[in-house]
């Protein structure tokens, strides 16, 4: 079973106005099979946490540690982290012109596994996963994220998670901007991954709605660059009725 351990994580970003401290001491441990919801207002640093874990070059870690199964994640390059089992479903997936989804998926799978997947099972797996996510087969021949609708981009992220089978998945606002049908499809995808693998999930969200479909084991309230409070699913219900005001007031 995998364990992701984040201790006292601090991160900064360079802005035109100077260096800005965004993460201010994040402590969080996620074990394989667990689902942790990270909920917080816009601008609190949730995406920064996700990017910092994945190794985005814009964010500098100034303090703290991150380990995956005891290995120092912060020492790894972006692609090494992915190969170590970390997966980030991005809030704003990037367009890659000239690269088809099918080519991209196969290249990623090969890189992660260290060998090319057997052609026959791979074609079947991709088709099956796309069916599950109600994605048209023609999708495979389109360029990655080019001209995708918001919902298509998110489904494509979950498709990758389903095929890559990470041990630790960070889902950054995968629910935002989806209509109810799309939300259900995407949530089903996440739940399937939970059933079929022992993946640990960091479910970053601004809204409580997705928690009706993907049940969290733990809920963390993220405010001003750190976790302000944590609890079980009941904390989400409290947030749903009260909003973030109480935490914001406490943080300021």
């Amino acid at each position, binding site marked *: 079973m995998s364990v992701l351990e984040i201790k006292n994580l601090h991160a900064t970003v360079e802005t035109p106005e100077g260096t800005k401290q965004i993460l201010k001491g994040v402590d969080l441990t996620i074990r394989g099979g667990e689902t942790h919801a990270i909920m917080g207002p816009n601008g609190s640093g949730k995406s920064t946490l996700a990017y910092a874990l994945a190794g985005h*070059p814009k964010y500098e870690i100034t303090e703290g540690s991150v380990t995956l199964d005891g290995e120092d994640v912060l020492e790894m390059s*972006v*692609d090494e982290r992915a190969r170590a089992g970390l997966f980030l479903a991005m809030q704003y997936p990037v367009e890659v012109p000239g690269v088809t989804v099918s080519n991209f998926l196969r290249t990623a799978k090969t890189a992660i596994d260290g060998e090319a997947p057997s052609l026959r099972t791979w074609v079947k797996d991709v088709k099956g996963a796309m069916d599950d996510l109600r994605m048209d087969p023609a999708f495979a021949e389109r360029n990655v994220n080019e001209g995708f609708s918001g919902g298509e981009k998110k489904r494509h992220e979950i498709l990758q998670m389903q095929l890559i089978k990470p041990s630790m998945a960070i889902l950054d606002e995968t629910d935002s901007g989806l209509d109810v049908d799309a939300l259900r499809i995407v949530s089903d995808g996440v739940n399937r991954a939970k059933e079929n693998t022992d993946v640990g999930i960091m479910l970053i969200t601004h809204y409580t709605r997705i928690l009706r479909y993907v049940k969290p084991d733990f809920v963390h309230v993220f405010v001003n660059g750190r976790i302000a409070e944590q609890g079980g699913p009941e904390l989400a219900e409290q947030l749903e009725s009260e909003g973030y005001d109480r935490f914001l007031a406490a943080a300021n």
Partner: protein
Amino acid sequence: MTSSDVYDETSIATVEDPASADVAGNAAGAAPVAAQGTLGREAAGSGPELEDEALALPDQGGQGSSHAAASRADRLRSFERGDHSTPSSKIEEWRFTPLRRFAPLFEDVAGEAAVEVTVSRPEGAAAESTLGAGEAPRGTVLVPEDLPTAIASARTEQALHLVAPKNTELAEPFRVQSVGQGAELRGHGHVVLETQESSAATFVLNHTGSAQYVQNVEMVVGDNSQMTVITLQDWDDDALHIATHHARVGRDAKLKHIAVSLGGSAVRVNTIGEFSAPGGEIEDLGLYFSDENQFLEHRLFVDHAAPNCTSNVAYKGALQGQKARSVWVGDVLIRKAAEGTNTYELNRNLVLTEGARADSVPNLEIETGEIEGAGHAAATGRFDDEQLFYLRARGIPEQEARRLVVRGFFAELIQQIDVPEIREHLFASIETELARSMN
């Protein structure tokens, strides 16, 4: 369709690394667009200044910048070397070109044995022959528009003449292999390619080694014939090459012209295609990959002088490394007589690293309102850190991520090259180019 239904503007997109710009438009009355981006550190000072859009419509005349005020049709053509001025950056068609680098090619000196040429003819081709100056069809199509072309024309005593005879379809290509014998050697060449009535042939011109080479390629595309020309600039790093390709396309004839520039220190290929009769088609495809300190320029001119002809221009380039430069200028002229014209031109550039710069200037001049369609698109994008991050976040190592994107960028164009071994060669060359910069 009237002229208001097409968009017709001259625009320029100049991009230095971190910037990205798009110039695009579609039929159906799109407003003129001029996109420019020069956010790079060295944006100011180096290279030509940006030009504002310049419209050239029959009823509006040539307003806009002084550069584009003169019609492309007005350019002087003459075999007399004395009629052409020495290239200078004040002259529109040379303003992007590093003249000091090309200077040896502007000197009117006798050529040396700078390039060794080997020709192989396919079965069914006409017997080997050459053409002296003034010996038709030599000189009937290509009349020099600039000094180096005039020098090469005057200084080449015998031009190679490759002919596909009337009513023959040649399955295998003609191959002209030119091997440069040394970067210090100056040479000239002139070759006349001819497909006679209702014939079909492919001509592959391959350039390797190193030389200072000025070359004229004259293409006589007979009525109802099909000509494919593939010119590969695969020179060593220190070669200089100026080439002028000039085609006349007959009635119902088709020319597919493909220029691939990967090697050389500085290469400039000027491709001119004109229609002499209705029903013709020109497809100009191009691919280039500019490395550190490399200058690659492609100029195109499609002259729609006859009605009901179609032209399609598509060039794609990638750039990487400090001072990697590319220039693409695409002129299309639709003359008064050219009713029913259909034309589109596209140029895309992919800037892979900082310090590289791509200039892209599409230029559409329309003298008749009765056309089918006309459009252009030019865009320069940067291979950015976000793309790289996205691919790497899926476990794909950096070098492979770049390769994936660049291969994808060129694939669509390479698929249109009908000679399989050249397709494979190009994919391999792109890998080599990429590997070069990664180490």
